């Protein structure tokens, strides 16, 4: 198994980052990962989100998975909640759309209107 020592260094580094911003994550991204989401490409969506967050050096956003929300035809579905603002749900989020959501919503602060699931 890969050495766990590397994780201690990451932990110490991240703790310093957290102290700089009061130990809170400013946003949460939920990727729907039911059978329907997985079949529609949610794994690639999750990877694209994580890659884009890393590329933008965003470390104060938590990314988690959820099950099916019952709108299988809209998968992959992604929900973005920034602070106390109402959550925004995006539909048909492929890798390119995921990159836009990170750049425009999570970094730029603007909802990506043409991707919103209504």
């Amino acid at each position, binding site marked *: *198994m*890969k050495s*766990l020592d*590397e*994780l*201690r260094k*990451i*932990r110490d*580094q*991240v*703790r310093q980052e957290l102290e700089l911003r009061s130990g809170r*994550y400013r946003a949460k991204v939920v*990727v729907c*990962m*039911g*059978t*329907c989401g*997985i*079949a529609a490409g*949610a*794994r*690639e969506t*999750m*990877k694209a989100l*994580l890659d884009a*967050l*890393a590329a933008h*050096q965003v*470390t104060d*956003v*938590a*990314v*988690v*998975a959820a*099950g*099916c*929300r*019952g709108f*299988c035809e809209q998968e992959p579905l992604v929900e973005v909640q920034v602070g106390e603002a109402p959550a925004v749900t995006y539909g048909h989020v492929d890798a390119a759309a995921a990159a836009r959501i990170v750049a425009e919503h999570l970094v730029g602060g603007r909802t990506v209107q043409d991707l919103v699931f209504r």
Partner: protein
Amino acid sequence: MKDLSLHLLDLIENAAKAGAGRVVVTLWWEGTAFCLEVSDNGPGLPAAVAAAPTDPYSTTRTERRVGLGLALLQAAADQVGGRVEVRSVPGAGVTVLAVLPQDHLDAKPLGDLVGALVTAAVGWPLDLQVAVGRPSETILDLAAVREHLDAVPLSHPEVVRYLRGALEEGLAPLQAQAERVFDAAAVPALSARPPPA
């Protein structure tokens, strides 16, 4: 599901949604068959679902009355002469074993196992353990990872990089075997086809 790694991700999602806290994924080869086993410590399947777990109309889902995950895995096994076994113990958990011959032209590829396992590790609040081989060797233990990270989320870019590295390293022998099986089975079968007129 276009490859086996997506079925694996789906099985882990089933365990997470059932309320399991710990999931053990074991991957190994039996000759030319790729074997994957997902074992959880959740509540087990309701009796009605346990009676026919791969029946799409037998499901624990509440959004819709159809559950396709295990049914699609069974179909993937059937098309290559493999098998799926589901063992459920009420209150103790579920174990799903799939044995999937890969020396068959209809075999689904393994796919992006690293990507599927990173997604599961980051996405679900599970103590996910990944092991390879028989006897198995643990290549990732999220309980130990979390202990070292304290409250740092697994979705942090540096942690994701660590997880990918650990899984790429640990799964490399399995992927290499997949290429050997494909070369030994599919390439001769394809080259035996008559040349186009």
